[in-house]
């Protein structure tokens, strides 16, 4: 059966890195990078990845891409004859081109969107695709916080091949993370969770997940979700943090939920959704007993301070450190082995109280003790 793959290359991704800039997002930085003598690196990496697809049987793979430096050049350089969609202003491509390209590929119902770039590129793809199609990143950018990228271009190609051949079939919701722009403007460099995309689940080939395998992601999530959902206490306010693992619990409770936001649950009912710090504090005033349910965010292993800032130091202090329930899949925790979980609440005293060890639920009644540092 013919398989369809969509290829997008962000031609300017990665130009900032070698010349010491934090990314290439934004026209000013790009100009500065060019002045400093930056050369495009992403195209070469894309070609390395695309060459791995040569193993696919002749005629059974259709490659869709965007014109010239956004994929066409690279696909041809790798020895394929692509179907070219859309149009671009060559030499002056923008994030909007990436978004449009992803939308056009989605329209072609490709089996996999295979894109080269960095965190900014992943965000653009996310804006267009969300979880509607399988995607896989070829790491070509300066910043790679997102878990949608393979460990290197060659491995990206191999994983794409194995996915298209049906050898890897499981898809995993993986974090798209990028610099928190608001914080960055205040001179704080930190990553923020922007959303999730579905990538082929082969841990050994993906960023930030250096080892471990054996459990299907869905089955693992199901066990944790069941445990938390079945053991929900009566008359207790549950502050449900963001992320796909917590969403699993909400799905088990058959409650509507906010993937990137915080929802409140009381006696198995949704009390309020997508709440900010102020709203959480107001609700806390009304109840006597509360818990926070959060998951570990990103490959770096953040508990607080990335993507769940609504659960602020004030909120955490009110709820109490002992009332925090952390959930994560075994694969995630095993892949973090050798690191610590991280907390960055912005409150040093609270950070100190959270450090040490945290119990993380990883299955039905199963947990691990994991070190936490700030």
């Amino acid at each position, binding site marked *: 059966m013919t398989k369809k793959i969509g290829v997008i290359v962000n031609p300017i991704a990665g130009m900032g890195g070698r010349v010491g800039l934090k990314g290439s997002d934004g026209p000013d930085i790009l100009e500065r990078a060019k002045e400093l003598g930056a050369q495009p690196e992403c195209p070469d990496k894309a070609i390395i990845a695309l060459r791995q697809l040569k193993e696919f049987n002749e005629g059974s793979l259709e490659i869709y891409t965007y014109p010239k430096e956004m994929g066409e050049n690279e696909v041809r350089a790798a020895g394929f004859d692509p179907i070219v969609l859309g149009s671009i202003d060559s030499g002056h491509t923008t994030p909007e081109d990436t978004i449009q390209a992803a939308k056009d590929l989605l329209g072609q119902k490709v089996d996999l969107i295979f894109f080269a770039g960095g965190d900014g590129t992943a965000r653009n793809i996310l804006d267009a695709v969300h979880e509607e199609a399988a995607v896989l990143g070829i790491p070509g950018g300066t910043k790679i916080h997102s878990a949608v990228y393979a460990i290197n271009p060659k491995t990206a190609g191999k994983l794409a091949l194995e996915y298209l051949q049906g050898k890897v*079939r499981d898809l995993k919701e993986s974090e798209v993370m990028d610099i928190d722009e608001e914080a960055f403007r205040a001179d704080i460099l930190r990553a923020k969770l922007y959303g999730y995309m579905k990538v082929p689940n082969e841990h050994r080939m993906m960023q930030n997940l*250096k080892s471990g395998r054996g459990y*299907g992601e869905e089955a693992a999530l199901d066990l944790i979700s069941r445990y938390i959902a079945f053991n929900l206490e009566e008359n207790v306010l549950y502050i449900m943090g963001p992320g796909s693992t917590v969403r699993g619990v909400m799905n088990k409770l058959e409650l509507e939920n906010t993937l990137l936001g915080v929802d409140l649950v009381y006696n198995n009912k949704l009390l309020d959704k997508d709440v900010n710090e102020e709203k959480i504090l107001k609700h806390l005033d009304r109840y006597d007993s509360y818990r926070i349910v959060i998951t570990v965010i990103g490959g770096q292993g953040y508990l607080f301070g990335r993507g769940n800032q609504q659960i602020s130091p004030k909120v955490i202090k009110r709820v109490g450190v002992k009332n925090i329930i952390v959930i994560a899949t075994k694969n995630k925790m095993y892949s973090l082995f050798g690191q610590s979980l991280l907390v960055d609440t912005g409150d040093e005293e609270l950070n100190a109280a959270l450090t040490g060890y945290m*119990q993380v639920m990883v299955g039905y009644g199963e947990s691990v003790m994991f070190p936490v540092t700030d």
Partner: protein
Amino acid sequence: MNKPYLRTDFHEARWDEPMIYEYSTPGTRGILIPETEKAIVDAVGDVAASLPESIRRKSSLELPEVDQKHVLAHYLRLTQETMGSNISNDISEGTCTMKYNPRLCEQLVMHDDFAYVHPEQDAETMQGILEIFYKFEQIMKEVSGMDRFTFQPGGGNHAVYCAASVMRAYHESRGDTKRDTAITTIFSHPCDAAAPHTAGYKIITLFPDQNGIPDYEALKKAVEKTGDHLAGIFMTNPEDIGIYNPNIDKFVELVHSVGGLCYYDQANANAFLGVVRAREAGVDMCHFNVHKTFGTPHGGEGPANGAFGCREFLTKFLPKPTIEFDGSKYYLDCDRPYSFGKVRSYFGTAGVILRAYSWAMMHGAEGLKTVANVSVLNNNYLEKLLLSIKGLSRCFNDNGIVRQEQVRYTWEQLKNDTGVGTDEVNKRAGDYGIPWYWASHHPWVIPEPMTLEPCESYSKADLEEYYLSLKAVAEEAYTNPELVLTAPHKQAGYNLLDPAELDNPDSWAMTWKAFKRKHGDKYVKVK
């Protein structure tokens, strides 16, 4: 053989053998069973009719209908596709303690005086085997320092389940019913988490510190968190990566201080047999994998046995029956009101106990100690050779801790350099006549793992041959990675068409019926 030999021309037998069901032709028979004589039929009547309706089959049993010649050909060919396990270079199975099983012990269990004994017999008529069980229990008590043993568990996991059951019976006997949590460590045998979990306990697993040692600070936190809900701790020592827990006395003290019990999984006992004992470590219970440490066949070659032992204060909770001696005869004691019950029928896998008793008696007390010493020596020698291979290292390489009788290695460097990881090395090593090695339990904690355990029965030449084979594969990975990535080339084993299918319950099948239901004729060779 006194010299190592790299088998570059090795080739395993490979028969293109369909499944036995595919041979089936309706109406074909291997044996025609004689009709029952009329006198018997008249006397007995319709036996099936005497069974309750609910347990009678509605349809006839679907068995493969095959003639004698093809049955013999089929199974003979399958026996040739085993890589000569047990008599070939079987160092590979770390944590499994694969060692040579003396043929003398096999002769003993085939002897008519043993083979025709049945556990339903009156104890008076099986004094011999009861005596062997009793005497082997005395040996196990001496080796471990525990006060009593049961051999009822059918394997290691079963023994751990038995421990969890004794633990619960003990706490409940004190009216202490809230203890619902057990602690274990990530490099203990996975059954130290799974078996207590199956027995109903919640499980907390501790990760090690940066040196790979069970983390005492994490234990403190877990104990603080569970408080009087802690039933006990289940830990393997030395752990599956080959490192002893140097803080074992502190672990035991802390768990005891909150009323918990301590259990030692001694599946890796080859490291210390006759050298140290569970009693001196302060634990309350332990088990040995008789089919590992005591030289009886392992895995597909024979049934297992988990010898479970405990201190005096727990003996009343042991499964029943126990085997007793009144000074003149051996008997089964079923009158044990505090026993938690049974984990299995009867009193243990007799063939395993007979073999193990013979093995232990052949070695004697000093011999058992030699087993441990030679295993450690073999391990250290092999480790020294292997660590010279480019691309190979061991986990927690720089922690300065000497490994015992097994080591968890890592091919992470090779994977980074060449794209060849442990799965591929494993398959290619088979092309040199090395049975596939044990990587690690899943999910992996150590990247690209390989766990080897060269027990006492391997010669220096065996160790060197093993080293030469792995070295050859690692060199191929650097010079011709495709060769390794596409292995096996000279074995009966195949590369899975689609490894992801193993994770897919809609795809794998444990019976022919399920296989046909899920796949139809898709994979059937004989149409």
